[in-house]
């Protein structure tokens, strides 16, 4: 069976037991099946992008680009790593492309439109803008790790598999990133 054939090429390491392999194979055979992967990863990719891109409209565009790119390129995914790792690398590249473009960022009204009153909306907006600005000052690798953790909501084990590091190493790196951010990002008092 095709599923087993791909699985056997990855068998030696436990990290290669990619839970998405069956869906990837199905998507290659029938592109419509890619929608199952889309449904599985939409929230995480959107969260990843939102942590790294301030403007909501741009977040939407980048998320769309990530999935259309993944669909177009899925035939080139060899299964050397996990599908998730491959997908978040596409997301990382898409964010990088956006950051390279000179843009004027409008106010992220959508981000706060459900807050109860105008003053709180304003404060929340200011706080979000400040935090996004501080994140933007981190190194690209740090931003990537931060977005995988707090945007995509991945655990240290999962991030470790994606970036090729042990969970302990990821935890230490994340601690340093948080401490660096914490020093620069004051409480809004």
């Amino acid at each position, binding site marked *: 069976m095709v599923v087993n054939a791909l699985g056997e090429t990855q068998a030696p390491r436990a990290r290669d037991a990619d839970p998405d392999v069956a869906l990837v194979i199905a998507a290659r055979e029938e592109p*419509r099946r890619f929608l199952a992967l889309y449904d599985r990863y939409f929230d995480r990719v959107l969260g990843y992008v939102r942590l790294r891109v301030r403007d909501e409209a741009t977040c939407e565009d980048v998320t769309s680009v990530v999935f259309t790119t993944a669909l177009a390129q899925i035939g080139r995914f060899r299964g050397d790593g996990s599908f998730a790792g491959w997908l978040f690398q596409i997301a990382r590249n898409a964010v990088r492309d956006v950051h390279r473009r000179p843009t004027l960022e409008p106010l992220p009204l959508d981000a706060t439109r459900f807050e109860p009153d105008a003053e709180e909306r304003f404060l929340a907006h200011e706080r979000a803008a400040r935090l996004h600005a501080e994140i933007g000052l981190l190194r690209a690798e740090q931003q990537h790790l931060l977005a995988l953790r707090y945007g995509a909501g991945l655990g240290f084990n999962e991030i470790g598999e994606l970036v090729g590091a042990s969970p302990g190493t990821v935890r230490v790196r994340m601690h340093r990133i948080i401490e660096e951010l914490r020093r620069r990002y004051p409480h809004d008092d």
Partner: protein
Amino acid sequence: MTTEELERDLEMLAAPREADELLRMAIRERVGEQMPVRRKRRQRPWIGVSWAGIAAAAIAAAVLAVGWPGGGSAGPSAADAAIVRHALQAMTAPANVIVHVKETGVQKGTPISVEWWQQTSPPHALRMIKKGVDQQGEAGNDGTTAYEYDAATNTVIETPSSSAPTLVDPIETVRDQLARGGAQVAGKATIDGTAVYKIELPTGAIAYFDTTDYRPTYIDNPQDDGSVVRTRVETYEELSTSPADEQLLSVTAQHPDARVHTRSAPVK
């Protein structure tokens, strides 16, 4: 600022928004538009094929191709193959009906649910209600317009839709895995007093089917953290396309007193 406060702010940046379901559907459509035509078979739009037709072809392929554990080269036992076939048939609706699916469960201690109505024939109009850990909402799409209901303001937000939705309900993955082969009957079990067949899917999920009518009853979904979230398929039924049933597909019909706001598509 404490680490916890910073982490909370970081999570807020990426927190789901109420409009996310609309965005999910809009991008889903865009991805669908990018899909190439299948190369190995005759060009035949998937949406024009009944589920029954897909299922029949897939069952044949599954029975011939799948490698069943313990079955040697002879494949699955006839009894197991029949169970898979019956389960697939029980969740494969004919054309020109409305499928109604409701799934419930508990995730992170919070009740979650999704309820879905969708036509099995073009334009595959659909309406869904989702209640999750971080988000809840109601949305729909009739093939030309996407709808989202904002309960806070009792507003239906309409957005032009460039293409009809695809036919994928919440249990599509289970249906797909059964149809493609690789599903393995792992015996019987009793859940909440109901005798069920246990079928392991290649995705790692486990689906349970009532032994009397083969309807799907529960799905165990493995999570990335190693835990398993069990959802209960409370409803799987096929409705007619009577005017009364078609009202179930319409967000505006379900909220006749809501204000309707029209806006441009969020994805360019």
